[in-house]
């Protein structure tokens, strides 16, 4: 810790994350639209954001290299939690994803994302100079699969996909050979074909609904997506104003404070406001990638890169769902959507990125 200087702390990144989180609280307050059952959630999110800011600073202070030594126990704990959840987890919305610790619900799969980023960053950094052959790929896949399989069995398809995307992006940046990439694509098509029958009915229904929407199902299964489009469309250039979106305030838009908070924002702040917020999210992603490029070692670089990919993918999928471009997944909008577990894993990531950028070797001395 000696000689640690805050000169390299990325205040822009921190500032924008703080802004997005506070904007998120404001948006959630509007989106609950007077639902008595949801009033609590604004206060909870404020507490989470407060905790989150402390977590960012604390994680930034800790040298990210320490995490390397904690990867094995962390991986093991996550693995055990996921197995426990699979065996004895409580049913919640048809899927067991939560662990109840006191009054706080912990989602081990969120933890799984962080562990996977750290574990893969460590693996690829250590094996940087080994031949990038199938064995190199297979070992990384094994490492990923150990976590991913339990998340998949929860069943939680979207987080499984996130983890697999993280793995692939790490593989890609670490030098995946193009011939193997082609092999993968072929394999992916075959696996997708074989795996579809194994999906849960609700997962199949979501995919089928997206691919072949029933034109008569106004109040049926496409209701949420249709309402999201109507909500976005009502926004126009400058929006209907904070707290004045008719689709949001009269609750035609469902899951307004989590999955569809993007639509709520689009209605109340319009095209201009939405582009501004998306711009800030892109800024966060680019700052994380910058940290990755400037990192003084591969491990740090891959950590920053991994979190950038995580934020990018979640943002892209969430907005894609809201714009009705991909099937409904349940991934939230980073920093803005309601959700403690999700926010906590994101701020941990931001903290680590700050830790990386704090300790990079600037070229200017």
């Amino acid at each position: 810790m000696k000689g640690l200087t805050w000169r390299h702390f990325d205040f822009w990144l921190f500032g924008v994350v703080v802004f997005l989180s506070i904007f998120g609280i404001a948006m959630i307050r509007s989106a609950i639209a007077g639902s008595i059952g949801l009033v609590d959630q604004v206060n909870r999110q404020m507490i989470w954001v407060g905790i989150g800011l402390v977590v960012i600073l604390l994680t930034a202070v800790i040298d990210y290299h320490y995490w390397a030594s904690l990867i094995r126990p962390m991986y093991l704990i996550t693995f055990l939690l996921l197995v426990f959840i699979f065996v004895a987890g409580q049913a919640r919305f048809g899927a067991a994803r939560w662990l109840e610790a006191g009054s706080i619900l912990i989602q081990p799969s969120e933890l799984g994302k962080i562990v996977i980023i750290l574990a893969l960053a460590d693996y690829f950094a250590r094996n940087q100079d080994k031949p990038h052959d199938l064995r190199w790929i297979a070992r990384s896949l094994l490492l990923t699969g150990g976590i991913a399989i339990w998340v998949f069995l929860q069943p939680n398809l979207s987080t499984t996909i996130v983890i697999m995307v993280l793995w692939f992006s790490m593989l890609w940046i670490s030098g995946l050979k193009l011939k193997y990439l082609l092999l993968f694509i072929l394999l992916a098509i075959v696996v997708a074909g074989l795996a579809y029958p194994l999906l849960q009915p609700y997962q199949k229904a979501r995919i089928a609904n997206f691919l072949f929407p029933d034109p008569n199902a106004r109040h049926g299964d496409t209701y949420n997506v249709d309402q999201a489009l109507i909500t976005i469309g009502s926004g126009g250039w400058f929006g209907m104003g904070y707290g004045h979106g008719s689709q949001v305030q009269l609750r035609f838009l469902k899951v307004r404070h989590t999955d569809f908070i993007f639509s709520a924002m689009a209605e109340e702040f319009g095209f201009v406001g939405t582009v501004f917020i998306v711009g800030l999210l892109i800024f966060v992603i680019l700052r994380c990638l910058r940290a990755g490029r400037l990192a003084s070692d591969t491990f740090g670089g891959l950590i920053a890169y991994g979190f950038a990919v995580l934020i990018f993918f979640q943002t892209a999928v969430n907005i894609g769902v809201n714009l009705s471009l991909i099937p409904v997944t349940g991934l939230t909008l980073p920093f803005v959507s309601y959700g403690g577990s999700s926010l906590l894993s994101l701020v941990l990531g931001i903290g680590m990125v700050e830790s990386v950028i704090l300790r990079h070797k600037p070229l200017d001395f």
Partner: protein
Amino acid sequence: MNFPDTEKNPLRNWRFLIIYVAIAVVFGFFLFRLFSLQIINSGDLVAQAIENRTDVINIAAPRGTITDRNGYVLARNVPSYNLVITPANLPGTLPNTINGALPGPIQDIYRKLSDLVGIPVSNGMMNEDTVKNFTPCATDLGITQIVYIADTNWPYQATRIKCNIDEKTALIIQEKSADWPGVGVEVDPVRDYPTGWLTSEIIGFLGPIPAGQEDAYTAKKLVSNRDKVGFAGVEATLQDVLSGTNGEQDVEKDAAGQVMQDIGPLTSPVPGLNVQLTIDTRLQSAAKAAIIHDLDFWNANSIEPISTKAVVIALNPKTGEILALASYPTYENNRMARIIPQTYYEQLQSDPDKPMFDYAISGEFPPGSVYKMATALGILNEGVVTPDYQIEDPGKITLLQKFYEGDPGIPQDYVCWKPEGHGMVDYLHGIAFSCDVYFYKVGGGYGTEVPKGLGILRADEYAKALGYGKPTGIELPGEASGLVPTPDWKRLTIGENWATGDTYIATIGQGYVLATPLQVLESIATIANDGKYMQPTLVKDYQNSEGNTVQSFQPKQLWDITKDPMITEYDANDQPVYDLDANGNYQQEVDANGKPMFDAYGEPIYKTKKKTVAPWVINLAKEGMRMVVTDGTAEVPFDGMAIQSAGKTGTAEYCDDIARTKNLCSPGNWPAHAWYVGYAPYDNPEIAVVAFIYNGKEGSLVAAPIVRKVMEAYFELKKIDTSQGTTSETP
């Protein structure tokens, strides 16, 4: 710790660039999509958002009442109380599943309501079908199940738990509703008919909006499954007058259907108009009592019951106001007040007497001898015979049945109803005795005695002038037009030439001639009224909800046969005399809308010369009908009646499905309907009455006494009204 810090960072190569490209592509596409949704295509989506949140609340307008001419109520609205629950307002949160535990206060409310109204707290299986088929008021589900369905689908709407609870229970629930949030009593107007089956053939009943007419009624702002519409009687024909106009209020609602605020001004409901009918309920009651009493008498004194169907109509010949209209049997319209009960409806439908069929206006029967009055006008007006000319009735004549010009003919016997004959008969006695042979001879011609009869074409002209052959336009649904047969009609419909015999029997109202009892009454009322045909009507006036008359119906004279030329002239060869224009060209006839008219063959109809009926002809016809009562066929039944009347009997042979199955359709064996139509006082008619008894066998014996009873009841009522000074306007 000492970390290696000079490792080669892999993140500074072309692979990294691909990531930037991916970010740019993804967000670029999102930007394009967002722009297209929010800016380019926003119009449609904004419209959908507006449709989402706006709704129209329809406020029911009260239906007008129906009263008789003296203000006696025939149809009104009475309150009916329904127990309702608004799920969202119940104390506590309802469980998400049907088997979930109910909060204590709600359980308590359910238990107490169950004790009060007798609906189980929980009953019935819940599945997709029961939910889909759920209809408030017609379900055997328990309170828990009904509220669960309501909470899932329309939590902010008051849902009916039990309909038509008694007033006392309703008051108890209303008192407790302060302690029972979400529970209430809804007051729903239900139609009530104090006179029930006595006037059901006139008033009719209400029913739900039929699926096929939903669009038409919705356009008039009526609401399916809530508002009811007339199904029969004046409830149906005066639907638009009685129903008024429902009010509307645009509102903003949330996703659960809860109304947030009003948008724009309220369109207040306009109550339906109250309708006052021309009917006198007391006379209606007298008419029905006469029917029931006399039918009972004849059926009890016959080997087998002779008849179960009859009609009596009474009207004022000078104004056309209908004072009584009884079609027997009929139905109890109060049983249709809330819903149309399936068993009762099926029972009515399968009854061979067809109680829902209004025989007075929808039944078409051979009019028989009452139709002779049309022929009687014709023979004098056309100069076939003079009034004093005597014709021999030997009881039976033989005529040649010819189907075409030059047909040698088949001899056929035509008999008078009196086998020994009436001897030498002049015009007045021909009517008084209803002498068939007299009318055969003057109608179709007979040797040298009557060289040229009236003929079917001319006879038809006089029947049509008295209103036969087309609906009268009375304010009741389903009126039949009757039939005045012509040679063209027979060729087109039956595919046979008109035979000479057809003319003979048509002139006495048999054969193909058909008429409704109302048409028969109108024909005699027209003669009684010196040739003025008055529009028959049931409606006296319309009053608004404050009781002020907004529209009063004045007697409407449709035509006067002594002044309006209506009788087409025919030349010696039975060809119409055309009305040529100044250049000697035919002029095509135009209908009421100014459109050129064509006949059944598609040939243009040309204007013909037309003439009127001479007043002296009508006076002689009236004299003839007076003689019917004083010296003729109705002498016995009207013997000793204080007020002078005139009339005409009819005994119309028929053959229908019922008679055919009894094997009665053969000469000498024909069954017959009984008719009598008359008016009184003879010198200044106030009332004209027709009685028709299906299969009544003998007009003078069965129908005439009923007419007398109704006439006497009328004058008795008039006396009472005059002595009490209550009579508003005696017809």
